[in-house]
Each structure stands twice: as C-alpha cells, then as structure tokens.
C-alpha cells in the first residue's frame, strides 16, 4: 500500500501491510541450511531498511541476525507493499514482519511440542534451536523447514515479544549492506552484468515536448543499433564508450521541433500565483478567540528543487519471447510494472520487475523513467540484456522535480499575546506523479513515444495520508481560528513529484518563521512562545531537548553568528523533530552547527535513525542555502553539478542528534522528519544574526538582499 491510500488498520486487524498480504509464506521461509529467508515488498534506498527488518525478524524468532537473508523485492512473488516512501517502511513492513515472525515461531513451537511431548510453554528458542527445560534440543526451524507450516494466512492473535524482552530490535545493529559498499563489491543495479549485455544511452531533445522531425543518416561506431519510438531516441552499443560516442553523433544529426512551454524563470512566484488551478480549504477552525490586535503578514517562496542523487538513474531490460524483464532501483516494483504495462500496451503478467539497489533515493526520481527507457532501447535487440544509464545532465535535467511553492500567512495576536487567528494560502503543483496510480502512465518517455501521451498532472495525496503540497501546512499550535487554503496548479510544465518532505519544507519554513515574528510581537522568547502554544507533550519534549542541547537559555549574542530553533511533527502523525541551527553570516550564510532532538516512538535501530535524521537535516541545509533548478522557457539548463550545487564537506555543519526513547510507543518512521525543521531553523538563525527575515529559498546573498 502506498502512503496515498494507506489507512490505519482497525483494531483486531492484521498490522501494517499484512492486512493486504496475509499469507505467511509470502513474507518468510526457513531453509534446511539454517537460514531465514525474508521477502519484504519494501526496498533498500540507502536508508537501512533491510537491516531494520532483519532485526525485527531475528528478534521475534530468536535467531542470530546473520541467519536472516533478505531477498530484494520482485514481481510477482514479493508481497505488494506499494511504494517505499513516506517514512512508512518500519510501520508498514516492519510491523507486518514482526507479526509474521511471531506467528511463525508459535506455529513451529506448537509442532515441535506435539512431536516431542514437551509442553509448548516449556520450550525455549536459542538461535533457531528448540530446547527442552533440560537443555536438550528437540528440533529447530531448520529441521522443520519444509513442513509447509507457513502455507496459511497469518492469525490475528500472534503475540510479539513485549518491549522489555527485546534484545536485537532496539539496538544499533550494523548495516548489512554496508560491507559491499566499502569494498566496491557489485551491489547496485549499475553493477549488474549479464551475459551478452549491451549498453544504451538516450538522445534527449533540446526542449520539453519537442518532436523529432529529422534524423540525418551517417556513420556510427560499429555494431551500434538505433532504437526509436516517435521522438524517443536511444542508441545501443557493445560498450559504454561506443554508446556515448554514438549518442553524441546522433544528437548532432537530429532535428527537433520545439516551442516555449516553461514559465518565465525570472517571475516564477508571480506565475505560480496567477496560474489557474483548483482551490480547496483544507482546514478550518472557528472557535472563540480574542480580537487580533497585532497582525503579521508574510509570503514565502521556494523554487523548484531536485533529487541530485550522486549516482544517476540506471536500469537493465531484456525482451525474450514476448516477456520483458527489468532490473530497477524503483521504489515500488508493482507500481513500475503497472506503468510499464500501460506504456508498452502489454499485460502486467508479461513483465518481471526485480529490484536492485541504486544510489541514494530521496523520493520519486528518474528510477522508474529509466526502466521504460531501457525497455524501449532493448526492444531493438530482442534477447539481449541492455543496460541504460542516464548521464548527469539527464539526472539533473529530466528527472521529476519538487514543486516550486508560495505560502502566504496572515496571523493575529490578541491583546494577551495569544495567537488568535491564522490564515494561510499554499500555492503549489501536486507533489506526486508516481507510477501505478493513474489510468495513464507517468513515465517520462510516454510523452515522446508514438503516439505521445501527456503525463497526468501531479496530485496531492489527502491529508489523512500525509498530504502533498499541504503536508505540514496546518500549524501544530493551539490556534482558535484558522483557515488554510490550497491551490493546486492545473498544469505541470516541469514534471513534479515527491521529494523528501513533499510540501513540508516550505510549509514548516513559513509557519516557524511567522511563529518567531509573533513571539517578537508578543515580546516573548520564541521557545517559550512555542511551548505555550503547543499542547502535544512529545512535541514540547523535543523542543525543550533541542533548546537544552544548544544552550538556548544561556545564549549570548555573538557578532556575525545566529541561533535559530524550529519544530515539526512530520505529517502531524509521524516522527517528532526539533532542530537548533547556528549560522555564520560571511559573504554568504554558512551553517556551522545543528542540534537535533528526535522522537520516533519505538526505535528499531538507534544508529540508523540518527543517521537518517542527520542526513535529512544536512539535505535541509543544502536545500535552504544552495538549491534551485535553473531553467529557461524550453528546458532545464542547470544540468551540471556546478549549476545545481549541493552542500559539500567544507560547508557541512557539525551535528549532534539525540533520541528520546519511547519503546512502548508505535514506530513513526525517520527518513524525512528533520529536513523541514532544519530549513526553518536556519531561516530563524539568519534572522537572529542579520535581523532580516528570509522569505525566498535558497537563502543566498541575492535572495537575502531582497528580504
């Protein structure tokens, strides 16, 4: 299930994605050699989910972690867990596997008890062996491996261990995928080598929606095959070198018909405001409130930003006897299969999609697009596996982007210094055009194939499943009167989709900036002002902890430096995070230190959670200070790292992260919680240092000069 259509399971129902995939043997099997084979539908994106899932399974079964083998998701055998997104994998997959493993253990022990005559309550499990009270081994998972014991639906009443008895889940187990990565072992889809494999590259048009109207004949490196479908043009060659040379030559021989389709980049905020779209009031509250005596008005803007993964998108495809096999770093093997089937007008059953890891994935990037590209290229050489790799220019220029946004807020304080009113308008494109959800495919190449098909406008998932543009748009603070509106722009000149946090970074920036201005108007410290308006005790705890970590109360003003605080609970239902940022204002702003206070409920792997929080916050620093997609009226022009700079070693702040342990609470996910508060904390630190309120991202000398 995706974050889009996920609903909390009613009590008494199976947890997580077990509800939709109830058979035990879809998730877990034992083998006679002493392994537990786990087949989750969620995939490794660099976030460490495989390690967390292995911990959960090892815990419930009482086996050593090293016995757990995780199989990458693949159609048609893995459970369909939708998309690995929204910081939901521990909740959706982890809680399902906890239940599955607890059920599998109970079933196996029952059988062992019956066979041995030892009562089931007397049995212990030690690394998979079943021991009688006298220490005698009377069986094991491995000895009972082929008993088809798990060929049944999960019972509703499986009993996972109580939190106090956990020994593996909740510890900082080492990442199981990391050794391969430090030794340079083949692990990524980029490293896949199949017998007879060929290499492909795409020839991109000079403009969005351009039509290929001419292709001059000419020499190509030996053995090169051209793959063309309408205006989709690719080359297939025996080596990467030949593929690149051929693509360059072909690009020089192609004639395209192009028009201006993109907005004026110099007036993007105005364009967003004026663009037609559908408007909705997403939250309204009208309780008794004091009259507003002081009003703060502010408008915030962020340009388009993109994923900027260090590796580029890659896929391998092979056509054989009417079936298509694809190896992909997609976030959802079934969703990709669905859109490949629509794009290629074939049956889903004729397509196999196997997950292999890619470089870090922070949302819906080019991973799915490149799979269709590879399929189209491989179509020209039936029977041969074809590896298609995007260039850096394609990765930065042609992957989906995260929407530019405008957020306007007008907030009023009553005479006693309480927030009385809050009006907010969010203007944005939709934040999801993930594959697999619309009758029309959303893969890049469909707009260029013959006949071309328009990719449907991006949607905003409903607030109940976290929202898109409206994610974190509703202030978490106690406000008696509020109206929050959202305009989704009707068209999408640059293809938009989900990127870490979706709308949250801009919404949290806007809310947390206005909170500071309101605190100033009330003559109150911004920490106290927040605490006074925040009812959620777990939110108050992370705020207080971040303040303590950075020495908020005793802070002294230092010339050229600023300290800022911000808070958000991700999606209002996910993990809690407060961030304090220290910046230094030189010729440009540099973030020197971050202090992060986190509460993710139950923690499966504390080190993994801290790694995610820190990585997300550094992503936030980069987005706050550096990132914007450069484009002209025809296409994205920022296609090299120097045109889309991200944070470097010399600019990375030191980071201190602390987790508030809540072993009895539900796990809440970790991957996205820190990004938005980091952005907002930096803005507040800039205000502290310079006395100006940053309103336009990224906070560069140029945008700060107009603040």
């Amino acid at each position: 299930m995706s974050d889009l259509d996920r609903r909390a399971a009613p009590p008494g129902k199976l947890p997580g994605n077990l509800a939709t995939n109830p058979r035990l043997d879809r998730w877990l099997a034992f083998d006679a050699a002493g392994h537990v084979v786990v087949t989750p539908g969620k995939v490794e994106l660099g976030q460490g989910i495989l390690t967390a899932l292995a911990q959960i399974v090892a815990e419930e079964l009482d086996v050593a972690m090293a016995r757990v083998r995780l199989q990458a998701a693949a159609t048609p055998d893995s459970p369909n867990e939708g998309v690995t997104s929204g910081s939901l994998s521990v909740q959706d997959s982890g809680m399902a596997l906890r239940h599955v493993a607890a059920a599998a253990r109970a079933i196996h022990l029952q059988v062992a008890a019956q066979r041995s005559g030892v009562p089931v309550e007397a049995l212990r499990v030690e690394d998979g062996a079943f021991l009688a009270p006298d220490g005698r081994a009377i069986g094991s998972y491995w000895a009972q491996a082929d008993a088809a014991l798990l060929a049944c639906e999960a019972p509703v009443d499986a009993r996972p261990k109580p939190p106090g008895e956990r020994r593996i889940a909740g510890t900082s187990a080492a990442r199981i995928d990391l050794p391969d990565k430090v030794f340079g072992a083949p692990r990524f889809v980029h490293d896949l080598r199949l017998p007879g494999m060929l290499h492909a590259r795409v020839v991109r048009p000079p403009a969005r929606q351009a039509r290929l109207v001419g292709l001059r004949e000419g020499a190509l490196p030996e053995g090169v095959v051209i793959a063309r479908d309408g205006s989709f043009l690719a080359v297939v060659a025996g080596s990467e070198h030949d593929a690149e040379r051929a693509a360059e030559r072909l690009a020089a021989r192609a004639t395209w018909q192009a028009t201006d389709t993109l907005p004026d980049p110099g007036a993007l905020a105005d364009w967003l405001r004026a663009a037609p779209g559908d408007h909705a009031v997403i939250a309204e509250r009208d309780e008794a409130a004091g009259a507003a005596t002081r009003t703060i008005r502010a408008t915030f803007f962020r340009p388009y930003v993109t994923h900027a993964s260090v590796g580029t998108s890659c896929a391998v495809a092979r056509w054989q006897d009417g079936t298509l096999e694809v190896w992909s770093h997609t976030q959802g093997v079934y969703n990709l299969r669905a859109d490949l089937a629509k794009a290629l007008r074939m049956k889903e059953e004729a397509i196999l999609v196997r997950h292999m890891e890619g470089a870090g994935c922070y949302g819906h990037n080019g991973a799915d697009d490149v799979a269709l590209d590879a399929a189209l290229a491989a179509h020209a050489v039936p029977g041969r596996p074809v590896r298609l790799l995007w260039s850096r220019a394609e990765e930065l220029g042609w992957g989906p982007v995260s929407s530019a946004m405008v957020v306007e807020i007008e907030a009023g304080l009553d005479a006693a210094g309480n927030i009385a009113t809050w009006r907010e308008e969010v203007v944005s494109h939709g934040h999801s055009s993930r594959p697999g959800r619309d009758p029309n495919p959303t893969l890049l190449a469909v707009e260029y194939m013959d006949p071309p098909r328009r990719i449907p406008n991006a949607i905003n998932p409903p607030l109940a499943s976290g929202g898109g543009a409206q994610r974190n748009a509703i202030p978490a603070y106690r406000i008696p009167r509020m109206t929050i509106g959202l305009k989704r722009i009707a068209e999408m000149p640059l293809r938009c989709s989900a990127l870490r946090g979706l709308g949250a970074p801009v919404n949290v920036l806007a809310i947390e900036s206005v909170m500071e201005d309101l605190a100033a108007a009330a003559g109150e410290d911004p920490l106290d002002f927040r605490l006074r308006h925040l009812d959620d005790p777990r939110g108050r705890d992370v705020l207080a902890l971040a303040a303590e970590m950075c020495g908020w109360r005793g802070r002294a003003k230092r010339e050229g430096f600023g300290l800022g605080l911000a808070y958000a609970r991700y999606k209002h239902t996910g993990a809690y995070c407060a961030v304090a940022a220290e910046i230094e204002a030189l010729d440009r702003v540099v973030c020197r230190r971050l202090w992060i206070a986190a509460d993710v409920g139950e923690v499966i792997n504390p080190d993994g959670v801290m790694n995610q929080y820190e990585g997300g916050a550094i992503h936030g620093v980069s987005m706050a200070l550096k990132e914007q997609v450069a484009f002209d009226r025809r296409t994205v022009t920022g296609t090299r790292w120097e045109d889309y700079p991200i944070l470097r070693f010399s600019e990375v702040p030191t980071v201190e992260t602390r987790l508030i342990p809540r072993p009895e609470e539900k796990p809440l996910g970790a991957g996205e919680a820190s990004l938005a508060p980091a952005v907002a904390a930096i803005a507040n630190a800039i205000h502290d240092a310079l006395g100006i309120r940053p309103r336009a991202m990224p906070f560069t000398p140029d945008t700060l000069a107009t603040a």
Partner: protein
Amino acid sequence: MVAFTLNGQPVSVEAAEDEALLHVLRGALDLSGPRYGCGAEQCGACAVLVDGAPAYACAIAASSAAGRSVTTVEGLGSPDTPHALQTALLAEQAGQCGFCLSGMIVAASALLAREPDPDDAAIRAALDPHLCRCGSHNRIIRAVQRAAAEMRA
C-alpha cells in the same frame, strides 16, 4: 592494447584511443568500485589512484594509464585484508546508500599517505571535491580520523 598495472597485477586491455579509464575499468576489466556520477570531474565517484595520486577515472583516457599503476577501492583492501579506512568506515557506520564511498576511500587513502595525522580542516579539504547526497559527511570524517589513528599506532 593498453598495458598497465591494476591493483598490483599486470593487465592489458583493448581500448579506443579516447575511451575513458572509468569505462575500461568497469567494462573489460570487470570492476565495480569506481562509479560514474558525472563524467566531468565534478563529483569524485570515479576516483582511482594513478601512481599513488588521486585521479578522476571518468576524465582521463585509458591510454594515458599505459605503463602506470592504477589502484581502485578493490585494490586498497578486501573483506579478508581490509584497508584501515574500510574497517573504520564500517566501525563508524559511515554511509547510507554508499554510492560515494569508493571515491571517498580512494581520496582519503591518498590524504593519509601524505599526511598521517590530518586535522578536521585537512580532511574536509581533501574530500571537498567528493559529493555525498545522503549527508554521511560527518561520519566519513570520523572514519578518516579513526583510520589515521589506527595507521599511526
């Protein structure tokens, strides 16, 4: 044919005149450690050592390696005989997706070879051309410090 020493072994391989060393390493020579990130000396994912000095394999022709010694992350250490940096990266759990790590390890090994006790600023400066999008920077710095201490001991 281009002949050079790769990770201590003599190799000789067919390569087009202007074929990038990266493509030859990942292609005919069957390595996966050096990675493509940009093809333009802007990310460091492809870094290797040529006669001990860090070089961008994406930007130099394989033919220019003739007669020289090329070392990739695979040549620095293996699970059985890890380089101190590899051990330290695992000890610090320094990485998320890990795509950047081959290049980081290669660059850091060159730094430690010339500067056994680098301070924080020296490590940041040596790794500054290397991009990491996952935000593993601080862990990587700690791992380099740990490896340096290990190698001095």
